[in-house]
């Protein structure tokens, strides 16, 4: 017993020493990056490592799972983060809360690689605070062996033919948003009557729905266990690669187009280094590596030009301008979000 305890203690001490070494490396400048999980290439091109090698700036890279968590982490009085990747409407919230550092664009010459179509968006006019990182649409992923008719409208989710084979996305704004679109309203409506109508529609649809899911939607669709689902275009790309029977469409009524963006919080003490990091991510080769690894669409037109033709021609990955024109970006709804929340709770409880 004694020997065992001794052996365990020694093993533990060894792991401790190696662990401590990791925690505090060198005394070069360190920037703290807070990204979504699995949202940067670390396989084909190790982006973080390459940045460290080329610039000598050390990166402490951590991840999180939602916009709300990013907001909480950046709001904390002793926040240490220098780079973060919030979505469109969260940026609006951050701007309203005076949480962002206005970018010094002289430090980001690669900004010229970004497609003008994705600059100057409503949530950050003039890109004062943010640079788009990834984007995509929300649409219908359907199995062509089960759905043979042409899919053009969100209304197909209410078609009784497909009862028990419909997968809805377990996310307030996305699901209420597409319902509002089907009814002909804006995804950013602040009219309570519109929300009530959407709530009634979703409640009426519930008996047809197989399940409200988030991430497992992908696996379920790949396995062929659902006829149709609400998904992000980037996830659709991955699903179609795994199961060629699947197809993706953005319905005629329009949909949501979303952007994840790079920002520097006001609390950052290394803004010039953070800007160097943004510039690095906007480099054509780096942006290509990231979009190929993640599967989401890149706003970087120089990177897009480097992709293989098949990918560029893929309407799911790279939708036409005509499709984009039908789509709206989410806006921050302020306190009105409570109306959405309450409707959502009632739908889920129904």
């Amino acid at each position, binding site marked *: *017993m004694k020997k*065992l*305890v001794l052996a365990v*203690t020694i093993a*533990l*001490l060894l*792991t*401790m020493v*190696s*662990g*401590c070494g*990791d*925690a*505090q490396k060198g005394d070069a400048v360190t920037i*703290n990056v807070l990204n*979504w*999980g*699995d*949202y940067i290439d*670390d*396989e084909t091109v*190790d982006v973080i*490592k390459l940045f460290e090698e080329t610039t000598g700036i050390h990166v*402490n*890279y*951590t*991840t*999180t*799972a*939602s916009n709300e968590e990013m907001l909480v*982490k950046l709001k*904390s*009085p*002793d*926040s*240490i*983060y220098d780079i973060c990747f919030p979505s469109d409407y969260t940026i609006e919230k951050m701007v309203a809360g005076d949480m962002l550092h206005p970018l010094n664009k002289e430090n980001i010459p690669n900004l010229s690689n970004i497609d003008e179509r994705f600059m100057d968006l409503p949530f950050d006019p003039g890109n004062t605070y943010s640079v788009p990182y990834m984007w995509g649409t929300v649409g219908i992923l359907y199995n062509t062996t089960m759905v043979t008719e042409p899919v053009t409208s969100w209304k197909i989710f209410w078609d009784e033919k497909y009862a028990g084979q419909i997968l809805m996305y377990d996310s307030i704004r996305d699901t209420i948003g597409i319902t509002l679109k089907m009814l002909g309203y804006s995804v950013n409506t602040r009219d309570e009557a519109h929300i009530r109508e959407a709530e009634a529609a979703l409640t009426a649809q519930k008996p047809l729905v197989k399940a409200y899911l*988030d*991430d497992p939607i*992908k*696996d379920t669709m*790949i*396995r062929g266990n659902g006829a149709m689902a609400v998904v992000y275009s980037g996830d659709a790309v991955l699903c179609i690669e*795994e199961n060629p029977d699947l197809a993706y469409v953005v319905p005629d009524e329009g949909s949501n187009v979303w952007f994840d963006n790079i920002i520097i919080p006001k609390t950052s003490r290394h803004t010039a280094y953070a800007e160097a990091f943004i510039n690095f991510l906007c480099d054509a080769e780096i942006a290509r590596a990231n979009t190929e690894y*993640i599967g989401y669409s890149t706003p970087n037109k120089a990177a897009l030009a480097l992709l293989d033709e098949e990918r560029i021609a893929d309407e799911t990955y790279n939708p036409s301008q005509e499709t984009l024109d039908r789509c709206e970006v989410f806006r921050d709804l302020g306190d009105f979000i409570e109306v959405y929340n309450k409707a959502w709770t009632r739908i889920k409880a129904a």
Partner: protein
Amino acid sequence: MVKRVRNFFKGTYLGLMLLFLYAPIAVLIVYSFNASKTMGNWTGFSLIWYRALFGDAMIMRALGVTLSVAALSAVIATIMGTFAAIGMHSMKKGTRLVIENISQLPVVNPDLVTGISLMMIFAFIGLKDGYTRLLLAHITFNIPYVIFSVAPKLRQSSNELYEAALDLGCTPLEALIKVVIPDIMPGIVSGFILAFTLSLDDFVVSYFSTQGVENLSIYIYSMARRGINPKINALSTLMFVAVVTLLLIVNIKSIREERAADTQRRKVAKKTA
């Protein structure tokens, strides 16, 4: 006949219980060898996820943080908790009960409350280093469990042992090290193992108390938006195998020791007879 039926039901019940406990782990292990990225879509046996796992610097770093925090916090909490328990044991009954109850309070406190209060105190004292925060947090929630497993052992052992050691010429420190601690060693070891596993498992307290540092549970949670990678299945499989091996070693050892003690006792009994 009745006996056979009874045995049959006993076996079925046991089987069902084990199935219930281990089926999820079995599924996870099987799919860690899947060639496809999708759960539930078996495309062939492959070790790609194991290779990818060891090539993934971020997972390896998170694993390093988890293991080092578990080891350090368990060692420190075991030392602090053991001495706290010994101290409490020698208090007067009234004070002892009060202190013991206060020290057990954090055990019933929800993790969420512990995590948020730690987050606030770290912000308040201006402690920025994420690793130190994580370590302190884990030591904090580990100490009560160590006390919890050491205190009963102290109650079982008698004070006379300590007094005898003093009579035989030990200084109090020597008596503590040579007599008291070996006597309560099983409690200390189980306290250590408990602390180590609790630290390994923890998500909620870690998530709120630290920043800029990721352990495995935070890392895996953050993957939720894009989907859990089969690399995580491979990692979980390896960790499961490691824990089972460790348990087997410990159990086999203690069974052997028990047998040895048994034969010893029988020999003594024979002699006296």
